[in-house]
């Protein structure tokens, strides 16, 4: 095992290229196997559409009919709005609660009870209250996105380093300065972790909410296509959501690296270089 690891850096360039080719070959092989076994009658194309049918489905849903765009846009809007509202509420509430031990003590039982309740179980209740439209979906995503940022922010606030607190105090920092200059940035890695968790569950929350009852959105579209056994189109929807999930994950990671740059060696070096240039630009005579 060790000698494989040791050789890795030397052959990195060549082997990365080769592994790309391997991946492509394996993928193509699997697709052909799938296509072939469907033609040979091993797989029922009624439930497992052929890759070629799915490709045609992409063309139909995105280009000729173009009906997926509206649903996709709506679901994305629900996810973003619910995520923004839920996580902001979670972070804001945690900041307030984190300020005082007493508030934290009295809030705790409610937090525990709410955390134990599966958020999606409240889904039908929310839909009954807010209707079949997008409002109820945003509220459900909001509920799904509330807890991780709330709990993580609270943890981050409580865990501030004792020595750093004393250092700030010895400089005569006010409570507000300690909060802005130490507690908040110090809690940032945990807050970002909470946001990533929230974002990861936001899309699922929106889809389940749309499955329950809705008049538009990707969840509805999947329900409709499977209802008439148009599996190729349903697969197009699922694969689209896979892509969306990837995009969301990638975006959150990029944001995370940007905000919590000091936990990442490369980003730290980059920011360091940028700040040196900015400083030289501003105080040309000093630097």
């Amino acid at each position, binding site marked *: 095992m060790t000698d494989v690891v040791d050789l890795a850096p030397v052959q990195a360039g060549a082997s990365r290229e080769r592994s790309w080719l391997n991946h492509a070959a394996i993928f193509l092989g699997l697709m052909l196997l799938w296509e072939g076994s469907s033609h040979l009658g091993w797989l029922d194309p009624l439930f497992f559409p052929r890759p070629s049918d799915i490709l045609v489905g992409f063309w139909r849903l995105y280009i000729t009919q173009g009906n997926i765009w509206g649903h996709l846009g709506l679901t994305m809007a629900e996810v973003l709005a619910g995520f923004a509202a839920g996580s902001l509420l979670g972070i804001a509430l945690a900041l307030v609660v984190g300020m005082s031990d007493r508030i934290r003590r009295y809030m705790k039982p409610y937090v525990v009870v709410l955390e134990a309740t599966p958020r999606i179980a409240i889904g039908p209740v929310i839909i009954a209250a807010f209707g079949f439209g997008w409002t109820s979906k945003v509220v459900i995503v909001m509920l799904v996105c509330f807890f991780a940022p709330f709990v993580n922010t609270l943890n981050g606030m409580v865990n501030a380093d004792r020595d750093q607190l004393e250092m700030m105090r010895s400089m005569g920092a006010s409570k507000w300065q300690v909060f802005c200059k130490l507690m908040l940035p110090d809690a940032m890695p945990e807050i970002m972790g909470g946001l990533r968790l929230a974002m990861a569950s936001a899309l699922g929350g929106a889809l389940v909410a749309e499955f329950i009852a809705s008049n538009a959105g990707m969840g509805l579209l999947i329900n409709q296509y499977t209802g008439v056994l148009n599996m190729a189109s349903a697969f197009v929807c699922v694969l689209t959501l896979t892509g969306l999930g990837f995009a969301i994950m990638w975006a959150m990671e990029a944001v995370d690296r940007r905000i919590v740059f000091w936990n990442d060696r490369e980003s*730290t070096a980059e920011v360091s270089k940028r700040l040196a240039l900015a400083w030289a630009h501003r105080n040309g005579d000093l630097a």
Partner: protein
Amino acid sequence: MAEAILDTSREARAGSSRPAAVIRARGLSKTFGGGRIVALKEADFEVRRGEFISLVGPSGCGKSTLLRIVAGLLDHSGGTLELHGSPVTGPRNDVAMMFQKPTLLPWRTAVENVLLPAEIAGKVGPAERKRALDLLGMTGLREFAFSFPSQLSGGMQQRVALARLLQTGADLLMLDEPFGALDEFTREHLNVELARITQEVGATVLFVTHNIGEAIFLADRVFVMTPRPGQIAKIIDVPLPRPRDPSIQVTPEFNALVAQVRSTLGGH
């Protein structure tokens, strides 16, 4: 140089051959747990301007407690404590403290960390920025001004902390085992630098350590402290000339002082 770096104008310098006492403690004590635990028992001492005082002793002797009381981070339970003639009621801007951990903020570059005291005081202008860079130069880190703490070694991080300490403008510096977590070579090197810098800026220093050699090497006077209850058992003068080279640590004079400290500590 001293005038440029530190505000020592609080007291008249002229007309006095012997510097005035800037720290005055009378019967200073600290108890915990409703008086049951005596962390510091009736300390009486005066520190003159520009003096370097080492507090040495085993753990539990109250040296860190004493330092934190002077820094205003701990209240005292009895006695009086005056800095520059006024009683201590909390953290104040003529006292600054440095810790064993660098306590740098990891999301700030070295120079931004050095500027923190100025930011907290609400004044960051071109003058403060220039001074932050100058102080980094003084601690030998000018070219690392824009590095983040994670890009610096432990010794370099403590140099940044030292520059930040000086940026406060305080002339009473409380150092709580500042190089205690570093390796022996780095520590000795930084001690020489510390002696040079504090002398250059004319600071008055209380330096806590449990290393006897280090205590004597740096100090004008060594306060030898003993535990249960924590107290100043003896004050020993260190008449060695300055600047001091690490090689003085093998001279008979130095070893006599070490023996003196040891015998005080051994009696307890």
